[in-house]
């Protein structure tokens, strides 16, 4: 809707008042004082209207990794004269404006005009759209027309920490991958030597051992296989503020683990058990990586008092022989109980604990200090109980590398396997 601005209304009032003053005082000077106001008012009334401007907003790319740049461009096609366009940006949280102005004014005429801004995605997540308030006025600012434009939703995926370590699943598939199988077969890793048997290939003969023993001996090798992994997110509760909290760190760890296992040719799935239950069935390849990443960026901690268990999960979300990597802050009993249940049902479970200590405010008095110590003892008891059930628990302090935690989990799992034998 085209409407007059405060400028032209004010000019009209001043002009008319000066004309009245001129008539009352019977002097022409007040009319001269009103001349500029009347002139502009007359021009505005007779001829000026804001031009018709068609605007289009584009964001490129709409999906990017944390830390990458995104370009927002506004294209203005003007018809019906010359005018001024003012564009005000409402930058959502999670984006930082690198190039361009938050509020800019430019003159447009009968041609295409484009304005671009560059943002950096500083936080991952399903970032809300960038809103643009566009105000079109005529050249002297007498009339204006406003419109609000919204760009498409940006999806900023978390940048995965490059992990070197990996938690190998115990049960492997017959498809080649990056985990050493306990079985013998074709592979690179040396396992053992044994006497030659009918059907062995000549290239497996270990000539050095054969010469020493005066009979044919062959090498056994361990094949590299892939497995199935389900990343289990405990999103019942979070500790921290809106900028940094255990939930964000949990998702980052989950993204890093997913990326590492996908690159190892594993099939990876996702289960998000919290206020909202979501899952992604296991799959492999880059498409699956993006599928999981897109699910992860929408992860939120929903307050829920419902007693949710893993019973509500469909069977195909948790394959029978998969490795379940639970990423949890271990602060909600429902999440801990779900992990126990999974283990009791025979799943191979490993837990990466996102330690919430760094997100807590310091204890101010003796009572809160005591409460904190009790809380720590309780968490320690939970950890010990999980380990007694054969679940490897690695405590990860946000900000520190994840590799040593994975190594510690691997050592524990190996020890459990040896003791089981």
């Amino acid at each position, binding site marked *: 809707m085209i409407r007059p601005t405060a400028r032209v209304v*004010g000019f009209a009032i001043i002009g008319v008042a000066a004309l009245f003053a001129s008539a009352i005082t019977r002097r022409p000077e007040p009319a001269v004082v009103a001349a500029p106001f009347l002139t502009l008012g007359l021009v505005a009334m007779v001829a000026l209207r804001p031009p018709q401007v068609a605007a289009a907003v584009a964001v490129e790319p709409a999906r990017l990794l944390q830390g990458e740049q995104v370009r927002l461009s506004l294209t203005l096609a003007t018809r019906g004269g010359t005018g001024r366009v003012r564009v005000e940006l409402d930058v959502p949280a999670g984006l930082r404006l690198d190039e361009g102005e938050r509020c800019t004014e430019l003159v447009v005429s009968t041609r295409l005009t484009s304005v671009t801004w560059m943002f950096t995605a500083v936080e991952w997540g399903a970032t809300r759209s960038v809103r643009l308030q566009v105000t079109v006025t005529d050249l002297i600012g007498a009339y204006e027309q406003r419109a609000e434009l919204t760009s498409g939703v940006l999806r900023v995926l978390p940048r995965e920490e490059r992990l070197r370590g990996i938690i190998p699943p115990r049960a492997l598939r017959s498809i080649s991958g990056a985990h050493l199988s306990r079985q013998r077969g074709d592979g690179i890793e040396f396992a053992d030597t044994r006497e030659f048997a009918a059907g062995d290939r000549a290239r497996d003969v270990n000539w050095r051992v054969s010469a020493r023993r005066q009979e044919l001996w062959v090498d056994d090798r361990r094949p590299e296989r892939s497995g199935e992994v389900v990343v289990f997110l405990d999103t019942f509760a979070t500790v921290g503020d809106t900028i940094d909290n255990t939930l964000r760190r949990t998702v980052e760890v989950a993204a890093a683990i997913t990326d590492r296992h996908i690159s190892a040719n594993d099939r990876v799935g996702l289960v998000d058990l919290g206020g909202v239950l979501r899952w992604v069935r296991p799959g492999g390849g880059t498409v699956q990586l993006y599928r999981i990443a897109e699910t992860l960026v929408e992860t939120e901690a929903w307050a829920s008092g419902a007693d949710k268990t893993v019973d509500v999960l469909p069977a195909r979300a948790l394959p029978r022989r998969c490795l379940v990597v639970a990423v949890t802050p271990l602060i909600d009993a429902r999440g801990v109980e779900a992990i126990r249940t999974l283990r009791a049902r025979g799943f191979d479970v490993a837990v990466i604990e996102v330690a919430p200590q760094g997100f807590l405010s310091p204890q101010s008095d003796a009572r809160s200090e005591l409460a904190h110590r009790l809380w720590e003892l309780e968490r320690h008891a939970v950890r010990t109980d999980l380990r007694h059930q054969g679940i490897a628990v690695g405590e990860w302090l946000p900000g520190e590398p994840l590799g040593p935690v994975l190594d510690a989990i691997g050592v524990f799992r190996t020890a459990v396997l040896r003791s089981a034998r």
Partner: protein
Amino acid sequence: MRGVATATPHRLAALSFVTAVFVAASVVVASGAQPAVASATLVSIALLGAGLVIGLPVLVVAAALGMVGAYSGAVGVDGGSGGLEVLVVAPALWCSVEAALRSMDLRPAVTADGAAHLSWVGVVAAVLVGTVAAGLVVRSLGESAPGGGLTFRLLSVGGVVVAAAAVALVGIRRAQADRSRSSRAVGSAGP
């Protein structure tokens, strides 16, 4: 141009205030320092300052109305000083109001591009020239035709206003035609 543009709101606000003080001084001198006129100008200056600080166009318009009232009082009481002061008061008052409103336009950290600044400066310059022309017409009429009467002089001012508006319209149309011609030369395509 961008560096200049970021400081523009403050500069324009200062320009507005300085010209308003200039108008007030001229009005007070023209009125022979009458207490009522001096009070009215002081109130107007205070209103303008408050409007500039708060960012309210209503206060600026009220300040301008106060100035017009004070000036009318000044010329009504002593019959004016031969129309000379109007050549100062009229352009300075308009410049003060326009600079104040423009500073408010640019206040939320607006970065105007060069063309936007130039277009505003062009409008201001054209209106100032028209105002001075109107003042000169009134003054010359007062000298050459002292018996012309108020209606005759007001019609003269109206004629100048209409002529200025016509010139402004022709200028705007020509500017639009030039811009569209230059855009065709560049070869931009429609959406």
